[in-house]
């Protein structure tokens, strides 16, 4: 994967403060087309802020985000979606004003494809099947188990037809069986050509999915590379295990 041509996502020098706290302090990295990149780091290291900036929910103070060479820094979330980035939320957000299928269909109606209602619903059914959702498509969110909500979120992100998928702890909170199914699903999406950036605490998932990881601490990139190399880095050991490690 290292031989990939122009990177799909380029993040350079991203900086964002909250009051006196530097949540992001000059973060740079690139993601090649077809890669699965893991973003890891202790709580508060800036992972979710980074995803929020990339997806347009927060404007950076400095730095640049490019998607396929086009700058998208500071674009609104809807513009970022149409440029080709979609994602899931850390805690699943599925409005129960719509049923499971329509929650996905609305992303196909807007997003990048702008399908009409009937076509969007057909697409939503296809995508729900793709992510292994077996529940009733007419079920409301408040009637569904957690893993189903996560699946609907993933199907909704895919319905935007993105080039790049951002997963914010999508595997968190799953039981061991679900976790294996979730890892397989992410792997198969990548096998179909989807580029993925995932924030994750589950190391087992990181090791088995990511060809490349970026380690954040206190808003800075302290290591990056293949999981074996980056996780063995002395700085990373210190951040995760303490000074004496």
């Amino acid at each position: 994967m290292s031989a990939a041509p122009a990177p799909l996502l380029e993040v350079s020098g991203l900086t964002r403060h909250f009051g006196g706290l530097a949540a992001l302090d000059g973060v740079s990295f690139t993601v090649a087309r077809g890669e699965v990149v893991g973003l890891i780091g202790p709580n508060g290291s800036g992972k979710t802020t980074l995803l929020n900036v990339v997806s347009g929910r927060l404007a950076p103070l400095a730095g640049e985000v490019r998607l396929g060479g086009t700058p998208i820094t500071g674009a609104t979330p809807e513009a970022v979606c149409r440029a080709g980035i979609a994602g899931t939320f850390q805690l699943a957000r599925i409005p129960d004003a719509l049923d499971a299928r329509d929650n996905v269909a609305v992303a196909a109606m807007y997003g990048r494809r702008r399908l009409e209602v009937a076509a969007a619903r057909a697409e939503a059914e296809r995508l729900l099947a793709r992510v292994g959702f077996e529940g009733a498509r007419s079920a409301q969110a408040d009637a569904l188990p957690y893993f189903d909500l996560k699946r609907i979120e993933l199907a909704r992100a895919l319905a935007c037809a993105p080039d790049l998928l951002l997963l914010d702890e999508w595997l968190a909170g799953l039981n061991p069986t679900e976790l294996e199914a979730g890892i397989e699903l992410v792997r198969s999406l990548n096998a179909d050509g989807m580029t993925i950036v995932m924030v994750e605490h589950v190391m087992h998932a990181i090791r088995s999915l990511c060809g490349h990881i970026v380690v954040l601490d206190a808003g800075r990139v302290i290591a990056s590379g293949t999981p074996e190399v980056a996780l063995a880095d002395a700085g990373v050991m210190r951040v995760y295990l303490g000074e004496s490690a």
Partner: protein
Amino acid sequence: MMLLDFLLAGLVIGGIYALISIGLNLQYGVARVLNLAYGEFLMLAGYGAFWGFTLLGLSPVLTLFVGAPLAFALSWLLFTYVLHPLLGRAQDQGKREIDSILSTFGLLFVLQGVALVAWSGTDRAYSYLSVPLNLFGAVIGANRLLVLVAALALSGGVYAFLRYSPVGRAMRAIAVSPRTAPLVGIDVARYSALAFAAGGALAAVAGILLSSFVGINPTIGAAFTMKALIVVVMGGIGHVLGGLVAGLMLGLAETLAALLLDPGLITVINFAIFSIVLLWRPQGLLGAAARSGTQGSLRLPKQAIPVAALLALIVAPRFADAYWLSLLVNILTYIALATGWAFFSGATRYVSLAASAFFGVGAYAVAILAPDYSYGLALLAAVAVSIVLSAFVGLATLRLSGMYFVIFTFGLATLVSAIVSWWEFNIAQKAGRHLFLSITTTHIYYQLLALCVGIIALWMVRDRSRMGFALKTLGADETVARQVGINTVALKVGTFVVSSVVMTLAGAILAPRWSYMDATIAFNPNTSFLTVIMALLGGATSVWGPMLGVVPLVLISDYLSVTVPNYFSVVLGLVLLGIVFLIPDGLIGLLRRWRGHLRRPDLAHRLHALADRIGGGPAGRNRVSPPAGRNGIAAPKGPASSQDQSQARQP
């Protein structure tokens, strides 16, 4: 020395603004109640000072020491026994805000109506310490100086209290994060009640101080609520010092505007300042609150009912006499207004209080243009003005949290009315307008019918199009809506413009019914009030909801305005409070719940089947045997029992 005089006068009124904005800040920032009846407390306290002075010879300074604790106690009771239980049951912040707006809006009408009935509409003023003093060469009444000193001292005191006392620190913690405050041992309910009560006490102090140099009448409250809101937004929610500075600035700006421009333009200046602040630095203010929790879509009633109703309405004028026809015109006007209102507010959950602004614009456009030009041109002009006005309001406020929109629309009718009055008086030089148009009531009736059919058809088309899905997503969770590529600002502004045009046309079409019109008639705030309660009574989230509320309320208000004209607004205010308390989802929600009860066994059944099939997840994980009620025989009715069933079924 003229300038210094004016500076002092501006600071005096600015001191009052600072006081009430600090009080409102406590109520909204800490207790999370947007109290639209805030100014009514000020008004009542002003009356208290007036009556104390004229009947008992009490000096207002003494009244302060009675009035402030009394207002504190009453506000505490109001919060603890009415608002807190009412708002506590809202599932989310969005619903809580809407409930607080509606219930305090109802309270506003009740208190205003009571004052009007009890003390009539005349200005009540008394003379206390009105001796001129010489201060650095400027002349100021001793009473005004006292007000300025008291306002500044009290603002400083509240600031120091919030900053340095443990109770103040707890309140600030709640203002920052009501959810995490309990984790560090803060009793949120208790301190919220205290903050709300303190806010009420500050309003009372402001009212008593104000009464010493301004006449009090039942309707002054809303204007002060509006100004307090503007100052809170300018100063920043939760910032006492910001409120103090902004209050003094607003007072100065108003006084200077009155001196340099025209006293009639003060409202316009207020709004100009407000708009500039909103456009310039909204990000320093409260961020966008997530709104969620709309209900699922409602199935349309059988097509036969609306078609039959439409046919009946088409032939009705042949059979109706003048009384019934005018009642039908009334009903159609409010169907257009309430449906037009809900077209935007029901879908997006942004509560607009500006129906009367658009209605009045329409009516006035016809009154001004129709006699000299043509009726058609007047309609076109009305539509054009309302598009510009609503697009401006939408762009200024709809990028922000719903609260700014509520505040802006709350004052919009006053603003437009002030502009029209000023224009009529200074430019056109007319007190009112006489309208002699050869348009019959039947003619008006059919135009209104067409308008109603138009908005309902538009709504139905919208619900089936992509836009309907986008609005449902937006109404439930704006962050999600943007994430999937929906341009929510364009969607909100567009929907708001359509909604405003419908309300404007209702006013334009109805205008020829009046032979005489002035700004107080055209922009009567009751129009906004009735529109909102009708839509909510019926249920604002579905197309047939609003009209369900219109028919009973037009009949009730028709009856009330004949039998108890004086208590009209009191009773309507109580009706609104009752609606918020008793039927939060509106009549259509009641209907849906009844139908839901009938279908519930079926639903419970489906969920079990679903949970079994999935086998994972919280509901299905413990299940060992297939549900006994699968064949539907044992499935009981009602939500409670269906829940029991899902949890207690073990072999």
